[in-house]
Every structure is written in structure tokens, then in C-alpha cells.
């Protein structure tokens, strides 16, 4: 069943020089057109099945919040259709409608009424709300005496306890301390597992890949990408990178090149030449990845590796112009697209010397494979220039090499942590030692 169906949705803002103009035009008393137009959303089409979770990402001003306001029914679209089936609870801003002079309890009931619940329904939920908010005796104090954390806990508690079919959340989780965020996320997971449809507008890309079934990348009011969260997030990274490239001014860092890299004639050095897969590729092309390989202890290419084994990630790149501070590196992701680890030459403490045009560089990262959960993993190699903090991507290939990790041991979760285990057991009741 479709929870949300959006078809060619557009939203135009009219920008007026003065409010009088707006009124004159609205009442038809003015001389025709008195405004400039701004399209906040243009030709948006997507659908979301009921029970699924959608993440909407994009830069500021890309139209995310406008889209959410339209989905919530707060704002009217200019064109197109928007069908939302089910009871909607919109959490566009924590605590909108809270009055600082009133007590927490009064505000809870007031907010419930705004969200469409009468006093009796709120009374049933009150204990849950109080338990989630954990503000104790402050419940009967005016809200103005609350810390911001208490305020947010209470506001969030009300919003998630009105029991919606569809929950729309805008950035609400970006505020608050870590414990609060953790708790919110837990609650959202709970709602999701309970079959609620959730739409989340956020800048937290991790949350999108971990939490959402589907993601939407908006840019300038249009959909740039719609699909699996990891792909959409990658596309977003690429977009940001493209935007930032023209802006960043590179300051030379003081890192001096280490002698750990060896100059070798090109015909004598190992060069990785295969790129098995390209999900997405971006960069300035001042240098390009030639290949990436996974090697075992004997230097043979492998497609699977065992936990505990020493493996080598070999990345080769060619520089197409002079680069003062080249960096070669990789990112390791699991099959869900979650970053397990990332490293590069500078980060690992072996910065590369300045590169000349046409030079080729191969870097071997040898590691003992930790006890990661079995399954498939992907390596994304990259070559960049600059420092750790400020670098400019020359070439990045998403998920260039996919390989499988196997293990002799059982592994629960993402990885196994070996522990020394010692237990203390008390005597059974009635048996005193000695």
C-alpha cells in the first residue's frame, strides 16, 4: 500500500517588493503581476510504501523543508499532486506551541490538542510521555525553568506519543545531547519496526544509511537521485565535493614528506591495473586511480579473506599534473554501506612526496584483518591532494573492489572483540562458606 504518492509536485514562492503588492495582487486590485517567482520545488515525483522509511537529504535551500511542509498539509503546492494516506504527525520543530509560562503538564496537554488528541486521549498517554521525557518533578514547573535538554525531551516525547501512521521529522534530532539523540533514534527504530511510515529530513547522512529504506536527494528544488540510501548518500558526497572544489583555498601544511616511499623505475614497480566495479566516480582528474587489488601474504590477488589473515590493499594512481601533497587512500564499507574503516597515506603516517606530472604511485596497505562479521565488503580507493583536514579529491571510485570476509569463529554484530572473561558467582542461599 502506498502511504505517500507525489506526482509532478511544484511549489512556487512569489516574492513581493512589499506586502501591499501581495495584497493588491491577491485581491485582484493591482495592475497584474507584481512579483518575482522562485521555484522551491519543481517537478517532484516519488512514492513511499506504507511502513517504509524515507530520508530526504540535500543542501540548505534545496527544498527539503518545503517538501515536508507540503506532505504535512501545512502548505499548499502550486502544481502537481500529493496524496498522503493515514494520520500524519509532523515534527517540524521541537516544541512549537509550547508556552514557557505554563507547566510541563499543561504544555503536554496543549500540544496534544494541537496534534489532534483530546484531553481523555492524552491522559492515557501521559504516563508514557512522562516516562520518556524523564523530567521528574519538573513536570509541574513552568517550562521556562527547564534546561534546553529537558525541554526537547518533553517536546519529542509528546510528538512521538501521539501515535501517527506517518511521522514527518525535520532535523529535530540534530539538536540535543548524545544521550537524547540516541534515545530518539531508539524510539524512531521502535516506531519503524512497529510498521509506521517515517519521512526524515536530515543532514545526518549516517542516520540516512542506517535508518532509512529509501532516500531522496534534492538540489535546487529538483530530485537528483532517488533510491537506495547508500547510493544516494554517495551521490550527495559527490555533489558537495563538486561544489566545494571551486571554493577551498589550499594552505600548505607543514607536514614534511617522509622517506618511506621509494622511487622506482616504472617497469620494475608493481602496479595494480584492474578496477572491477565502478558504482560512482568523481574528482578533479588531476590524478586518476589505475587500479585496486586485494592480495594475500604471497602477493596473489584474492576475492576473499579470512579474519586474522594479513592482507594487502594495493592502490595505484597516476598523476596528470604536479601535485605537492598527494594522498592515496581507501574506505572500507560493509554491505549496508556503513563505513567500517578508512585510511590514507597521510593518516597512516606515511605521507607521499610531491608528485610530478606523469608519475605513477602504488601504495600497499598491509593489515591484519580484524574479526569482522562475515559477508561482503567493498573498497573505495581514492587519490587526493592537500592535507588531512583540507584536501581536494582528484579521483574517487565508489566500491571499486568487492570481496568476501570469512571466519572460522562465530561473530555477532559488526565485529568480534576478544575478551578475557572472568565471572564471580555468589554462594547459594543458606550456604555460608566455612
Amino acid at each position, binding site marked *: 500500500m502506498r502511504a505517500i504518492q507525489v506526482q509532478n509536485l511544484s511549489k512556487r514562492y*512569489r516574492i513581493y517588493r512589499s506586502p501591499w503588492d501581495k495584497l493588491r495582487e491577491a485581491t485582484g486590485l493591482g495592475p497584474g503581476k507584481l512579483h518575482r517567482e522562485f521555484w522551491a520545488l519543481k517537478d517532484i515525483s516519488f512514492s513511499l510504501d506504507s511502513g517504509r522509511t524515507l530520508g530526504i537529504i540535500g543542501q540548505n535551500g534545496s527544498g527539503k523543508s518545503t517538501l515536508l511542509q507540503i506532505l*504535512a498539509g*501545512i502548505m499548499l503546492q502550486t502544481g502537481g499532486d500529493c496524496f498522503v494516506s493515514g494520520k*500524519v504527525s*509532523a515534527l517540524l520543530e521541537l516544541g512549537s506551541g509550547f508556552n514557557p509560562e505554563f507547566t510541563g503538564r499543561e504544555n503536554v496537554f496543549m500540544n496534544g*490538542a494541537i496534534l489532534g488528541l*483530546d484531553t481523555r486521549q492524552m491522559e492515557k498517554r501521559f504516563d508514557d510521555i512522562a516516562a520518556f521525557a524523564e523530567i521528574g518533578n519538573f513536570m509541574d514547573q513552568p517550562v521556562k525553568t527547564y534546561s534546553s535538554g529537558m525541554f526537547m525531551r518533553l517536546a519529542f516525547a509528546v510528538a512521538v506519543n501521539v501515535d501517527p501512521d506517518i511521522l514527518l521529522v525535520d532535523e529535530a534530532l540534530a539538536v540535543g545531547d548524545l544521550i537524547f539523540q540516541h534515545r530518539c533514534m531508539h524510539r524512531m527504530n521502535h516506531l519503524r519496526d512497529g510498521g509506521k511510515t517515517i519521512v526524515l529530513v536530515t543532514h545526518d547522512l549516517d542516520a540516512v544509511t542506517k535508518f532509512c529504506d529509501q532516500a531522496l536527494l534534492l538540489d535546487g528544488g529538483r530530485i537528483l537521485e532517488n533510491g537506495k540510501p547508500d547510493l544516494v548518500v554517495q551521490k550527495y558526497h559527490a555533489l558537495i565535493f563538486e561544489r566545494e572544489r571551486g571554493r577551498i583555498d589550499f594552505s600548505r601544511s607543514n607536514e614534511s614528506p617522509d622517506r618511506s616511499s621509494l622511487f622506482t623505475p616504472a617497469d620494475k614497480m608493481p602496479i595494480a591495473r584492474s578496477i572491477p566495479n565502478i558504482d560512482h566516480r568523481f574528482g578533479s582528474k588531476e590524478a586518476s586511480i589505475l587500479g585496486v587489488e586485494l592480495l594475500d601474504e604471497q602477493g596473489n590477488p584474492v576475492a576473499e579473506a579470512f579474519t586474522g589473515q594479513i592482507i594487502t590493499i594495493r592502490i595505484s594512481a597516476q598523476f596528470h599534473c604536479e601535485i605537492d601533497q598527494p594522498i592515496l587512500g581507501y574506505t572500507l564499507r560493509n554491505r549496508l554501506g556503513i563505513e567500517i574503516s578508512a585510511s590514507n597515506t597521510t593518516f597512516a603516517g606515511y605521507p607521499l612526496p610531491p608528485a610530478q606530472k606523469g608519475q605513477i604511485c602504488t601504495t600497499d596497505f598491509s593489515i591484519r584483518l580484524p574479526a569482522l562479521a562475515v559477508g561482503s565488503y567493498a573498497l573505495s580507493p581514492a587519490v587526493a591532494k592537500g592535507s588531512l583536514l583540507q584536501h581536494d579529491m582528484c579521483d574517487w571510485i565508489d566500491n571499486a573492489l568487492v570481496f568476501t570476509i570469512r571466519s572460522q569463529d562465530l561473530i555477532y554484530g559488526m565485529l568480534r572483540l576478544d575478551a578475557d572473561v572472568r565471572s564471580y558467582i555468589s554462594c547459594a542461599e543458606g550456604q555460608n562458606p566455612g
Partner: protein
Amino acid sequence: MLAPWVIFSNFLRKIYIQRSLIRNFVVRDLRTRYIGSFMGFFWSVIHPIVLLVSYTFVFSVIFGVRPRPDAGTTSFPLFLFCSILPWLFFQDTLQRSSTIVIENANLVTKTLFPSEILPLSVMLAGVVNHLIGFAILLCILIFTLGKISVFILLIPVYFVLLMLFTLGLSWFVAGLNVFVRDVSQILSVVLTFWFWFTPIFYSTDRFPAGMRFLVHWNPLAQVVAGYRDCLLRMSMPDMGILAILGVASLLVFAGGGIFFRVIKREFVDVL
């Protein structure tokens, strides 16, 4: 395009569904005004009394104004109290409604909120104040005149019509003020004129004959006259005028409602 009365009846039905929320807002409105203040609710009584005492001093003591013999009372304060009560309700509601949507911009833009209930709850909070004032007036009447007339039964009719008229205008200024913030300032000016051109301190027949139309077409003047007829003169008000007042109030009520219903769709874009 739906007919206006269909739009309006749907509009009213939606408001009815929201009654629980409206109750919350009325309580909030009343409490916000007096919360944290030591005297609390008594301020709603003290303010009119201060007005009454000051006006009485100026008009009765300084200028020596006396109510006309046919006014039903010789006491100027009583005459004034009876006249100013409906006006204060009208003025307070209108003035507070004009900015109420902007004050609650957060609710309008961030929640699915029926903004039409904002002027409505301001008006209902005013009703509570009015009832308190009216109860006091009634006590004074019984105490000084020793009797009340059967025509007091017509007061609710006048008051309900005044409520409809006030609410219609409130919706109108509340909606307009979202777009043009000067509206609440303009309103203050208009209300000042309106106040002095309404026979509150004086009886209707003191009005210059050439300008009498200002009274005839002033619903507030008719309501004030009605209050005096029923409470002080204890005579039957003019039923023809009451009927016209009724039609006018309903028209303003419906017109303001439809105007707000149409214009509120643009609120989010502007706020």
C-alpha cells in the same frame, strides 16, 4: 468552485470538531493574561473600574454631564458602565485578534494548525470577561434600582449578535494583518474614532441630526442602545433595528469567515 455558504458551513463544522483545542486555547488565553500576576484574574475587573472612575470624574464631575431624564437612571457611572461594557468586549477582541496569527506564527508554519480558532478563542476569552463585567453590572442594578426588567432576556440576543459581528471583523483583521502589518496600527486609529462616534458617553439623540446616519449604520451604536433599553430604560427595543442588526452581524460573520478561510492558505508562505 463551491458556493460560499458551502465553504462557510464546512468551515464552521471544522471549527466545531476542534472544540477541545479551542477550550485549551481559551484557557491559555485567559491564563496568559493573568498568569504570574499577583492579583490574577481581578485585573479583568480592575481595569474597567478604573476606566469607569476616570471617565465619570471627567464627564460627570468636571463637565457636569447628566443622563437624560428618559435614560432610566440619573447615575452617570451606571449609564456609562452599561454602555461601555459591550464596547470593551468589541474593542479588546478586535485589537488582540489583529496580531494573534503573527504571535502564533510558529504554530501556523510548523504544525497542522487551524488558525481560524485563534481569533475565535480570543473572542471567547473576551466573553468570559464580559460575563464577569455583566454580573457586576447586574448586582449594581439590583442594588440601586431594586428591580430588573423582563427585557433583560433580550440581552443574550444582542450579545450573541455582537459576538458574531466581532468575530467576523476579527477574522478579517487577523487575516489581513498577516500580509500588511500596519493593519493593527490602522485598527487602533479606526477604533479610537469608532469609540467616540458611538453614543457611549451620551445618548443617541445628542448626535447632530445631519450625522445621525453614522449611528444608524453603526452596529455598535445599536448594541449599546439595546443594552440601555433593556437594562436602564426597561423599554422594548426597536425590533426592526434588531432584525437589521441581526442580518448585518450574520453577513459580517460569514464574510469574515470566508475571507479568512480563503486567505489562510497563503499564511505559511508569508509568515
